[in-house]
């Protein structure tokens, strides 16, 4: 059974991915652009989609652009940024009603395509620069966006862990860039960067919905065409790993301590033992039946949350928990014991089977949303692999206890980060 039908067509400068399905009342268009993470570009790259989404030549103000979206039955349009391994990805998403569920039958999909093309290829420029006002406003917002990480302690402590653990590696760069670099961006140099990104980035367009394939292809090739390019592949990963585990404690005025522990998994998407890593993570800390949840929360009553998650392209695992300041040693000890248990094969067949069932369920649920589906399919673009979802699920189901123990042995603790209160130890 094919769980998902994805048809990939190379067009001028990008790949078109069509996923036809009747389950939604809307159609979704997601445009993705990928380039290596670099200190030089990351801040500009984070600003660019914000500038593009605020106006265009045809809709020169935010009010004009947003009014048009409202008219298209409240089509949503948003941009976001992510890091996948050492790549920086910009996404532009439009979700637009399928007119067959409206009392007004005028077709909307083509308008969605036209709008996407307008935003990407017809920006609001004055001479050789973006509109100055827009860039000024978006720079201000970007600074605030970068600063706001500090105010969300859960997010802040995760960012700090990555900065400490991956210090000197591109992955340590913040997805929204560096506040100190924002000022130097001008309407001119950002426009230069825009042109270069559309010339060099690896670009993909995903269309999900009850669509006609030929119609989609014709809209795409007519409205969106760029120069052909070769995508930039990363060389070998840079890893600056110390021999000893780094332990960082940072004091702030907080009531709850945030404990974040980073590990190197030494396994990335596309590796043969990647599926065993997924199952490992599920038994160890991915779910509410996992060892971390049971032992840190249910048995020791130390935390409300205690979980682990993987970064699939960089090869990292992050454990996170919110604990009372005085319980640091006990929590770190329990987490450590759980990893040792995994290395010793100290988990039951029942834990193994229930974890596989829950992962299978999680994947199938994720692909029920157009966004979740796109994120799963995009792994193949990032890793330059071609693993279809059925294969993924079959391979995951085949994972054995021995393979999980092997994976556990490859996992190395790298850095412990603790955001602690100013009265720690009292």
């Amino acid at each position, binding site marked *: 059974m094919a769980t998902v039908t994805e048809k990939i067509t190379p067009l001028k400068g990008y790949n078109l991915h069509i996923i036809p399905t009747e389950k939604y009342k809307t159609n979704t268009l997601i445009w993705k652009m990928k380039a290596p993470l670099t200190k030089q570009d990351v801040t500009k790259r984070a600003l660019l989609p914000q500038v593009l989404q605020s106006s265009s030549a045809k809709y020169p103000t935010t009010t004009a652009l947003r009014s048009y979206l409202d008219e298209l039955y409240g089509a*949503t349009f948003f941009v976001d940024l992510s890091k996948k391994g050492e790549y920086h990805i910009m996404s532009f998403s439009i979700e637009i009603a399928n007119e067959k569920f409206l009392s007004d039958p005028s077709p909307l999909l083509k308008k969605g395509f036209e709008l996407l093309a307008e935003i990407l290829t017809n920006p609001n420029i004055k001479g050789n620069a973006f509109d100055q006002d827009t860039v000024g406003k978006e720079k201000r917002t970007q600074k605030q966006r970068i600063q706001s990480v500090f*105010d969300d302690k859960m997010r802040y402590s995760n960012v700090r862990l990555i900065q400490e653990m991956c210090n000197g590696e591109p992955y340590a760069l913040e997805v929204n860039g560096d506040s100190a670099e924002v000022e130097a961006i001008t309407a001119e140099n950002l426009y230069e960067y825009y042109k270069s990104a559309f010339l060099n980035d690896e670009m993909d367009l995903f269309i999900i919905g009850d669509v006609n394939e030929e119609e989609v292809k014709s809209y795409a090739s007519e409205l969106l065409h760029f120069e052909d390019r070769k995508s930039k592949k990363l060389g070998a990963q840079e890893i600056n790993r110390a021999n000893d585990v780094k332990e960082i404690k940072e004091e702030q005025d907080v009531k709850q301590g945030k404990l974040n522990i980073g590990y190197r998994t030494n396994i990335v998407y596309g590796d043969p033992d990647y599926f065993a890593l997924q199952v490992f993570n599920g038994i160890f800390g991915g779910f509410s039946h996992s060892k971390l949840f049971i032992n840190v929360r249910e048995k020791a009553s*130390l935390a409300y949350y205690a979980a682990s998650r993987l970064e699939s392209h960089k090869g990292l695992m992050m454990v996170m928990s919110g604990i009372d300041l005085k319980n640091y040693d006990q929590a770190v000890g329990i987490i450590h014991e759980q990893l040792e248990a995994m290395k010793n094969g100290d988990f039951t067949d029942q834990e193994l089977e229930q974890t596989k069932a829950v992962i299978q*369920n999680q994947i199938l649920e994720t692909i029920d949303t157009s966004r979740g589906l796109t994120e799963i399919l995009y792994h193949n673009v990032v890793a330059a692999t071609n693993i279809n979802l059925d294969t993924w699920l079959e391979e995951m189901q085949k994972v054995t206890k021995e393979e999980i123990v092997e994976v556990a042995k490859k996992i190395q603790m790298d850095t412990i980060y603790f955001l602690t209160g100013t009265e720690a130890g009292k």
Partner: protein
Amino acid sequence: MEKISFDQLQEELFHEKLSNGLNVYILPKKGFNKTFATFTTKYGSVDNTFVPLGKNEYVKVPDGIAHFLEHKLFEKEDGDVFQQFSRQGASANAFTSFTRTAYLFSSTSDVEKNLETLIDFVQEPYFSEKTVEKEKGIIGQEITMYDDNADWRLYFGLIQNLYQNHPVKIDIAGTIESISHITKDWLYECYNTFYHPSNMLLFIVGPVDPESFMNQVKENQAKKDYKDMPEIKRKFETEPAQAAEMKQVLEMNVQTSKCLLGIKALHVDQTGDELLKNELTMNILLDLLFGKSSENYNQLYNEGLIDETFSFDYTQEQGFGFAMIGGDTGEPDKLAETLAGMLLKAKSKAIFNEEQLERAKRKKIGGFLRAVNSPEYIANQFTRYAFNDMNLFDVVPTLEKITLNDVQSLASEVISEERFSVCQVIPKKK
């Protein structure tokens, strides 16, 4: 079993009220992998003064008990229900709001078994002193986590400003002090009063056959011996129409200030069609005033008073309601003042036209289509609507009927300085 068809949306809903009073709804969704089910009681954090089942006097229970009960229901004599769900490939969860407690699972296999587990674990409580004590540590950490969360403190701070007496002003999880008074006997008293099937609703959405699922639920319920329930008696103190406090400023460990302006709602005794129309009209009014395509939004953004965190929302339930507008800002006082000025202007004169109204309605209609892609949205919202005697699928026809006059008269009535309040979070002085 009755079948209700929604032709424009191409959806069918199946419903039956069982002999023990439980309302069961099933919405088949073709093409989806996942089945999502919620089992919800009309019992939330505001229900803190009531006559317990079998007694005659009102009691007031410790703050946070509805949420505590939600946590404890997952634990049984032979272990934890999360384990059972995950053995059956499901992911389970629960949440407590002001007016509801919902238990839910989603799964793509073994759906019948998971449904049985959901119904049985909610209907078979097991509370012991020992497990109640253990939970205090876990919930204590949940409360501390929210204490450090500036957005949550801002939100609750504003509700506390708006409300003088109504228990909506009490944090859903309670405080570390208030939960220390919770015992297993209190939990049973609340459970017995509010978890009778006649106070609950089961909603199933996914690629399911309605007939066989309805039969399964009926068979499950037929095995359990529920006695008829007297009507639940809840008590709320009277609440003045104006806001309790004009302003509150919280100093926290943040770098960016936050500011929310709230408006205390009127007509909080509404239910059914009246409530539906009122809340949709209010949503349209807020969208016309502060949506991204509005002049006000543009002005606020251009002046640097708001950023992308800016949002607005309207909540109305039986007995309370509020609108909230705001977000992160460099100038919390100026933002509060500007928002108040914009609201008062809309109160005093007709500033919207037909074209804007039409656009706002279209936006809401498209937004509804997008929302019904989500099984979670359908189940959660349908339940909320049903508990307020409304029908989720009346949203589009009701929206279509809203006139400019409706919006304008609501604006002139609901907007009033005596019902405004402001809450701010500012960086703590070193």
